[in-house]
């Protein structure tokens, strides 16, 4: 039995249930880092090359916090997770592609890194081959890995189904992995609905976005994110664009934003963007232009390691005021 470390950021918010199930089915122990804290952020800022973006620095912080607690660090090379459809040259941000190398060179004392390349575009059997490779590094047979992969896929499907029902990732994981009861939430019938789009590691990490979703929830606002939409819906939006961008997570944010802009029941769109994110320079502008075209109120919230709660709070309060006044006027 080995202890496998999974950092609580980046792809965690969408794929943790899959990998947790997989490793545990193989008889290993999964150690996940705590949600981002100031200590993790400080560790990351200290360790990472200077010009990396804040999400990459945070990832380094999570790895640093796991180093002494695990036998293996799970840090796959994410290339593509598209199972079907023609997405040409779409991949992940270059910093994701180089992440295992960054980690290896930054943490010379790190335990062995499981840096398996994940490129599902290669074909239907690819995920299974990946699982077999990961399993073999931990001393598991092909048969064991194939069975674990099958089980993990089932859990992943259930997880996606929960997200599609409007559950936020942390709660969906609690329900699925720990048997928690879904919390019941009451929304006033005339309450506001806001779509929050952006990278999962920006919108679901309350430390780095200074509790943005909570601020909205406290106002009894119904929150939607791109991860509550099926691939089918997102891909339909993709076809309406003359061209997609190169990055998977960016495209999801864009398609989700475009979808919600056309919905009459959505009062406004908030895009959470990481300061110094290259792809976001385009994502944010595209969403802003499209929001104006659809006459949908749009707010861009930029986050970085110095983000103070007051700046975000002021903007959120003003945005919510604006939406309420619009409502009253209509």
């Amino acid at each position, binding site marked *: 039995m080995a202890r496998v470390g999974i950092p609580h950021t980046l792809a965690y918010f969408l794929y943790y249930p899959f990998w947790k199930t997989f490793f545990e089915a193989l008889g290993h122990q999964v150690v996940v880092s*705590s949600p981002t*804290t*100031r*200590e*993790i952020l400080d560790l990351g800022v200290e360790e990472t090359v200077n010009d990396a973006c804040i999400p990459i620095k945070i990832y380094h912080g999570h790895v640093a916090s796991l180093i002494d607690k695990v036998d293996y660090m799970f840090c796959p090379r994410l290339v593509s997770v598209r199972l079907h459809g023609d997405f040409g040259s779409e991949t992940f941000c270059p910093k994701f592609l180089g992440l295992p190398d960054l980690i290896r060179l930054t943490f010379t004392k790190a335990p062995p890194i499981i840096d398996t390349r994940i490129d599902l575009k290669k074909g239907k059997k690819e995920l299974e081959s990946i699982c077999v490779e990961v399993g073999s590094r931990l001393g598991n047979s092909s048969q064991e890995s194939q069975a674990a992969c099958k089980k993990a896929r089932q859990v992943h499907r259930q997880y996606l189904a929960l997200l599609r029902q409007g559950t936020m990732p942390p709660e969906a994981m609690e329900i699925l992995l720990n048997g928690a009861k879904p919390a019941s939430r009451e929304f006033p019938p005339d309450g506001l609905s806001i779509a929050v789009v952006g990278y999962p590691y920006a919108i679901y990490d*309350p*430390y780095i976005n*200074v*509790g943005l979703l909570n601020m909205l929830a406290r106002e009894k606002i119904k929150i939607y994110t791109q991860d509550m939409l099926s691939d089918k819906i997102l891909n339909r939006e993709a076809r309406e664009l003359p061209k997609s961008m190169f990055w998977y997570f960016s495209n999801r944010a864009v398609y989700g934003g475009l979808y919600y802009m056309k919905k009459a029941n959505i009062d406004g769109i908030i895009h959470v963007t990481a*300061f110094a994110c290259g792809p976001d320079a385009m994502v944010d*502008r595209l969403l*802003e*232009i499209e929001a*104006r075209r659809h006459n949908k*109120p*749009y707010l861009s919230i*930029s986050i*970085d390691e*110095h983000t103070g*709660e*007051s*700046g975000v*709070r*002021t*903007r959120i*309060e*003003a*945005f919510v*005021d*604006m939406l309420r*006044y*619009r409502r009253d*006027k209509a």
Partner: protein
Amino acid sequence: MKGFLGVDVGSVSTNIVVINENGEVLAEKYLRTNGRPIEVVQEGIHEVGRELNGEVEIASAGTTGSARFLASMIIGADVVKNEITAHAVAASAVVPGVRTIIEIGGQDSKIIILRDGVVTDFAMNTVCAAGTGSFLDQQASRLLIPIEEFGNYALKSKNPVRIAGRCAVFAESDMIHKQQLGYNIEDIIAGLCEALVRNYMNNVGKGKEILEPVIFQGGVAANAGLVQAFNKYLNTKVTVPPHFAVMGAIGAALLAKEAYAKKKGTNFKGFNLRDIKFVTNSFECKGCSNACEVVQFFQNGELLARWGDRCGKWELQTA
């Protein structure tokens, strides 16, 4: 007579106004915060009370600005509102039909777009403070020009020089470079004003649909050079309202008036705030590795409120 109090505590200035039921300004104070918001609010409220000479009874009070929560605890506010909404409310009352608000304060700048009296879009500067009041203050004192005179120098310029306004650090070195080459001070200051307007339009104003009437408010609107530079850049005449420096406070007062119409009664502690002892202290919470710095607020030795924690465990409910 009934009055409504508005307090706007910003990074650089603390503004206090009292308006009557018609929205007319009865008293107005523009004070420097000087890093001591509590004392400045206490002093300011006391002075306003003295000026009003017991003829006005505060029916409701509102606070805004970056220290709006702190200020609300000090004065006993009925409304606490963000500065964007407060500025929009004030501008709409002063210039009905306003469609663009340019607001430049001590450390932040914002643009607010209104259509048919409703805010439809806004933006605030993020991490960069280039082009805000603090930077102008700093440049004025470097050139030994009183800040009140700074803008008038720009008006005397015939040929503004081109200054890089993207960043305060580069703007300053560019100004020094131009001064060492022998350009005169009026042209350099006028150039700086134009650079700041360019920076504002490219940053905060990026992609915004700017339609007339345009209002320019906030402390920096006192600078005639910037007013001229905005007129030139936008090819229109921007309006600087009479109480431009205290518009946030006016907005807070108007919101207090609105709240009063719905619910009578006020939490306002009175003009004699000077006699109450307010103390704050802070500690680092050891509950988790976030190590939040929690602020505690005491009134005459009694703990009234805590804030600054992310999880809410130190939150204190007061009546």
